[in-house]
């Protein structure tokens, strides 16, 4: 009988051994991406390194442990707004009202906490307010096709009024909840910080190995193993290095109060970053967001509900802005009529764009917004140590944004499809 033989062939049919990519090939591929104008977050990483070296060499206070924690604190809210903006920018739209959405979210949180003292209810009120704002903005853009620039400019003005109305005549309301205050002002126990760093590295390696294994099982070519190992090492150095730096005592009077450990906001932000990256890169919804941003007509013909994708992205954007509002309320421990105002929105747009998110849509990532947010925070934090004049700080920040937008525009021109 020959049944054994037929079994064998049907089983091994597709398992053709495909060669794995070498490090040299990986470098060639990377250079090809650069040549095609796909710079990604590379420019912001370079920017961070340059700024770090520059500020460290000019002022010793910059690289201190206390300032490092400060930096994270300053970057957090802007980065959350920027992560939300990534969803909107990926569509080729803009949200100018995200800053005041954060302000209104913060005000809702504080008012609900003042009246009910229920932390969860306050958080839900803030996030719900953000979602509703996003739903209204998104519907106006997606169904009535009003340019998002106009819709969100109108919302930018209107939400300032809403913020004033919620706060009332007092001018500033204190944030009464201790749990909320903890998010931006307290630190994890040292051992928790180290454990989380280890979990992050192990998780990265585990997910990477699992993915490689399933590709091998399917007979698909692998990306370079050397690149994978190098990224794992870089992540480990960054995670443990940052934890070590944050575990140093940064109180000026340690005998009175000890300030050391990873701030609570770090693991919260890490979870949001991983979650949103998953949504954008691993789900059908995320794929459709990129498709609508790349070619809305092609997406429509492929049967994608383009309007629904647009509305959802605005809802996500405004909800993340409201989340940033919670962080602002936590950091200042109060809400004022200018919470989320001033440069908040412009810094967030700058963060997303500096990180490599295209203003033309279809290109961007969550981690880019984080890196861009860090660049903005480093400038805002380091510049005053060198130049005290505030006019110079505005000019420099503006120039950095202009530089990032120029890189975006030039890379578009270089890409053959641009």
């Amino acid at each position, binding site marked *: 009988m020959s049944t054994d033989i037929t079994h064998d062939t049907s089983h091994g049919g597709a398992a053709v051994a495909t060669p794995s990519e070498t490090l040299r090939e990986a470098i060639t591929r990377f250079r090809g991406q650069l040549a095609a104008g796909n710079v990604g977050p590379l420019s912001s990483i370079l920017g961070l390194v340059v700024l770090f070296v520059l500020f460290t060499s000019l002022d010793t206070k910059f690289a201190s442990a206390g300032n490092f924690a400060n930096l994270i604190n300053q970057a957090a809210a802007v980065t959350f707004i920027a992560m939300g903006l990534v969803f909107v920018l990926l569509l080729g739209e803009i949200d100018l009202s995200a800053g005041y959405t954060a302000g209104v979210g913060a005000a809702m949180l504080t008012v609900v906490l003042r009246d009910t003292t229920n932390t969860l209810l306050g958080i839900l009120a803030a996030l719900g307010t953000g979602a509703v704002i996003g739903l209204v903005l998104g519907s106006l853009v997606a169904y009535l096709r009003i340019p998002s620039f106009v819709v969100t400019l109108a919302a930018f003005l209107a939400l300032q009024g809403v913020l004033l109305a919620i706060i009332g005549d007092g001018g500033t309301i204190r944030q009464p909840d201790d749990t909320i205050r903890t998010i931006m002002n307290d630190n994890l126990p040292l051992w928790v910080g180290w454990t989380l760093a280890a979990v992050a590295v192990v998780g990265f390696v585990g997910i990477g190995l699992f993915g490689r294994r399933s590709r091998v099982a399917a*007979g698909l070519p692998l990306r370079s193993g050397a690149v994978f190992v190098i990224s794992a090492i870089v992540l480990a150095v960054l995670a443990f290095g940052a934890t070590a730096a944050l575990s140093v005592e940064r109180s000026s009077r340690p005998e009175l109060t000890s300030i050391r450990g990873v701030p609570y906001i770090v693991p919260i932000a890490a979870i949001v970053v991983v979650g949103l990256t998953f949504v954008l890169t691993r789900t059908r919804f995320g794929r459709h967001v990129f*498709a609508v941003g790349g070619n809305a007509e092609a997406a429509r013909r492929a049967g994608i509900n383009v309007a629904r994708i647009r509305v959802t992205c605005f809802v996500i954007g405004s909800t993340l802005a409201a989340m940033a509002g919670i962080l602002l309320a936590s950091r200042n421990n109060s809400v004022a009529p200018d919470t989320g105002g001033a440069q908040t929105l412009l810094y967030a747009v700058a963060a997303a764009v500096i990180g490599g998110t295209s203003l033309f849509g279809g290109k961007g990532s969550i981690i880019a917004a984080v890196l861009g947010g860090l660049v903005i925070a480093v400038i805002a934090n380091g510049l005053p140590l060198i130049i005290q004049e505030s006019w110079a700080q505005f000019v420099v920040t503006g120039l950095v944004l202009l530089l990032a937008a120029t890189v975006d525009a030039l890379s578009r021109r270089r890409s*053959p499809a641009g």
Partner: protein
Amino acid sequence: MTPPVDPGPDARVPTIRLTGIQKSFGAVEVLRGVDFEAYPGEVTALVGDNGAGKSTLVKGMAGIYPFDGGVYEFDGERVEVTSPKQANLLGIEVVYQDLALCDNLDVVSNMFLGRERSGGVTLDETSMERSATETLAGLSVRTLRSVRSAVSSLSGGQRQTVAIARAVLWNSKIVILDEPTAALGVAQTEQVLALVRRLADRGLAVVLISHNMNDVMRVADRVAAMYLGRMAAQISTSRATNADIVELITSGRSAALGVGIDAAAVEAQDTSDTEEAVA
């Protein structure tokens, strides 16, 4: 040997058979009783001058808009195709001239756009990449370096290849190609025409809209020539010369072949609407 005359009604079952199709946009009659067939394993070239009604006919077949009158049969059964999704379910795929690709996405993502495979909430990238690779290999496509490269980095011919491969990924029975070689250079035109031929050789019905008579004579088995909203003739390419087809396109009839529509009658009817809608 090719038969000297058309064998009359074909004994085979066509994948698509349209009979007496009519379509108007407002007062403008674009299709006036068009008959059309496409058979499995054959490339049927759909030719005609601008405004003859080719695009309107194809969009109707693809369910972009319904026909006003006439009979639409698919695989020998009468159907009403009212939406693109329904056309896809029947196995009708159209590759439009603009290709409808997302430049920022890679080849695999484009091929599965709108019909992604997923296990639970996560996209099943492994399975999609594998199917895309197999489909491209099945079409003997060797010009793509990696199915994970972004479409923006591909040449015109490679993009066309991706769009065609996307159309055959779905167990489609008929693939309609709108001017696939219009924007391509000589070498890339060769590659795409070879690919079109391979689709038919795999048993699919292929409809090729083209203005290029060389392409038509090279790759098509049959030619359907439209003239002012009517089907002037459907003939085998082996019977016709380049000049015969040009005559059918420009005057609606061919003296040499003895086929075509009565041009005088058409002219008389056409005096009211000289401006043909460009569909």
